[in-house]
């Protein structure tokens, strides 16, 4: 006769390994954002102390990066960072092969307002130092790591709740077994 623990006892076994993975992953952003901070400091040195900070934030912001939560097995949420407003490359060149209109200049269609949100680099001026771009790249990498860690944390929380449930079932069984 099977016990309620059959099949479910595998659930908490993976948790210590996941804990170690989460701890290791949490150290990894240390390196990414450290690189990011150093790059920000370099940019501040190049542009001026007050030129890289909250004073430059835009009054209207739209996120370039969003989080998509997908449901994996057993109802667990898995996070993935997705960049918003990624467009296919524009086709450059004549759209029609051959005929040219001679009656007046062809009205070119006005460029549609871009759906892509504004790059935050633009808040800091037209020509920004390379270090600011490096900072942006480092923090973007950090965001992907953050999504991975959040997924792992969800898994650990789920494992914890499963373990609690199993422990309670075990307690209920014990008086019966005795």
């Amino acid at each position, binding site marked *: 006769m099977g016990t309620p623990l059959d099949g479910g006892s595998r659930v*908490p076994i993976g*948790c*210590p390994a996941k*804990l*170690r993975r*989460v*701890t290791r992953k*949490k*150290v990894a*952003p*240390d390196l990414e*954002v*450290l690189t*990011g*901070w150093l790059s*920000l400091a370099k940019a501040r040195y190049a542009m001026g102390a007050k030129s*890289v*900070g*909250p004073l430059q*934030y*835009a*009054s*209207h*912001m*739209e*996120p*370039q*990066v*969003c*989080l*998509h*939560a997908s449901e994996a097995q057993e109802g667990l*949420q898995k*996070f993935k*960072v*997705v*960049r*918003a407003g990624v467009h296919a490359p524009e086709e450059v060149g004549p759209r029609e092969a051959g005929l040219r209109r001679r009656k007046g200049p062809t009205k070119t269609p006005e460029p549609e307002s871009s759906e892509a*949100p504004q*790059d*935050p*680099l633009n808040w800091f001026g037209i020509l920004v130092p390379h270090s*600011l771009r490096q*900072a*942006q790249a*480092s*923090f*973007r990498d*950090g*965001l992907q790591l*953050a*999504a991975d860690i*959040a997924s792992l*944390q*969800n898994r*650990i*929380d*789920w494992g*914890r709740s499963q*373990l609690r449930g199993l422990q309670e079932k075990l307690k209920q069984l014990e008086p019966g077994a005795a």
Partner: protein
Amino acid sequence: MAGRGKLIAVIGDEDTVTGFLLGGIGELNKNRHPNFLVVEKDTTINEIEDTFRSLGSLPGRVVEANPNQRDPPLWDEIDSRQFLNRDDIGIILINQYIAEMVRHALDAHQQSIPAVLEIPSKEHPYDAAKDSILRRARGMFTAEDLR
């Protein structure tokens, strides 16, 4: 909003918030409700806690131990700013030294979404022993299990 995905919020020092906003997570909508908070020297713990708000599991309202301490007309404003009250936030990034200031609020947050991630700051490296999530999980295992 559902098609767009969830946001990543950040509570941190100036460099951390500037960096992640450069990464593209910032949102400042028409109602002026941001998904970030820059913690400066004069930022109070109440302000950090209000923004984070672990008691915000109640729909649209927050229960306070002593509501008379807060200005009533600001309640609606505060509710909209609280990251836990917002259903469009998937992850909250918070510098660990700031998380220490509002540790009780973090410990009270039991839901999986939004996920709360404690991250290092320039002057305070990450310490796994202080992380709420890891501490909670470690309590389930013995030292032998974690080797």
